[in-house]
């Protein structure tokens, strides 16, 4: 059995993907920031000289997560709409999936994490996460609400461990895995 399909890695990657997906689309649906989910600006990666996250939105390369947030904000604009139930953009996730693509990820890792965790411990994982669903425009808060328009959406992410929080079980803030690559399409 390869390290990528090792039972612990499968279990941990599925759990990490689920937590990530739940967090990411909840933030977006509530109009909250998703910038801290990206590798940009995280201390361990910044020190080690990691490049900024590669973000491509409907074929457009976007240089920072903040710029993606501006696009999301732009997408939400409906200044003339008086009805709050026709103002929203709502993402509904219908499915997601995850593969471990490097079970021995070590970029920027503190030596103690390398010493402590082997590639079958489900910690030092680089993961490919795919998500799909429907995005509703001009709608309300809830599933099944009327909408003005809808699109199929697909997201592909590559996630890596957040060394700043991964070994701190008490840490409640901060994402355990960070985005280094994000591809979005909605058609």
């Amino acid at each position, binding site marked *: 059995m390869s390290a990528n399909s090792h039972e612990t890695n499968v279990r941990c990657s599925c759990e990490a993907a689920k937590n990530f997906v739940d967090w990411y689309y909840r933030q977006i649906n509530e109009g909250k920031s998703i910038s801290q989910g990206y590798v940009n600006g995280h201390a361990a990666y910044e020190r080690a000289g990691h490049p900024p996250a590669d973000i491509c939105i409907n074929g457009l390369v976007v240089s920072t997560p903040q710029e993606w947030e501006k696009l999301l904000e732009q997408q939400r604009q409906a200044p003339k709409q008086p009805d709050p139930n026709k103002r929203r953009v709502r993402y509904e996730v219908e499915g997601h999936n995850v593969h471990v693509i*490097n079970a021995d*990820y070590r970029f920027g890792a503190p030596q103690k994490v390398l010493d402590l965790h082997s590639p079958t411990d489900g910690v030092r994982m680089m993961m490919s996460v795919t998500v799909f669903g429907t995005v509703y425009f001009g709608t309300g808060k809830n599933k099944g609400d009327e909408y003005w328009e809808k699109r199929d959406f697909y997201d592909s992410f590559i996630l890596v461990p957040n060394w700043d929080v991964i070994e701190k079980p008490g840490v409640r803030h901060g994402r355990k895995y960070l985005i280094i690559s994000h591809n979005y399409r909605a058609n």
Partner: protein
Amino acid sequence: LKAWFPTPLPYLPSNLRDGGNNVASTFLRSFFTMYDQDRPALARQFYDDESAFSLNIGTELNPSTYQNYSRNLETIGFRNPSAHQRLFTGSNLIAELWARLPATRHPSLDLPDEWQIDCHTFPSLADPTGQGLAMGLAITVYSRFEEMDPAQQLPGTRKFSRSFILGPSKPGAPHPYRVISDELTLRDRISQQ
């Protein structure tokens, strides 16, 4: 109109940043031709013992062959043993699964309107020789294919997305790169009468 309703973001064509040597275009051309015509040969060419494949489909009105193999973690639950069983690892298992999936016909890659392909290189894969780090290529494809479902015996069309992670091969492989990860996402079938 824009002032009255939130509006979808602009939609641009394919964004190919595969490092200048056209790996993505060359690979995809072989891939979809062989996927339609000779899946076992495709698995031998580009997949090895560590390659992973899984597919992902939402809830459908008429259950299809794909449902039996879907690793949609939203629907099966991320603690379900199927999350392990439906992760197909190694070229042999992948080829066995592909043989059970409906026959497909993808549009020609010479029709750019039929495909959106986004790709870019990224750092920090494990080097297959065990030394240091390697670059990877992330390719995501959006298109549709025609399929003949064996259960229904009716032609249909599906929109799909397929995300590939390519990395350098192990020594002795038929190509300098291999598929590390292949995740197929399928949408509802549209039947043709």
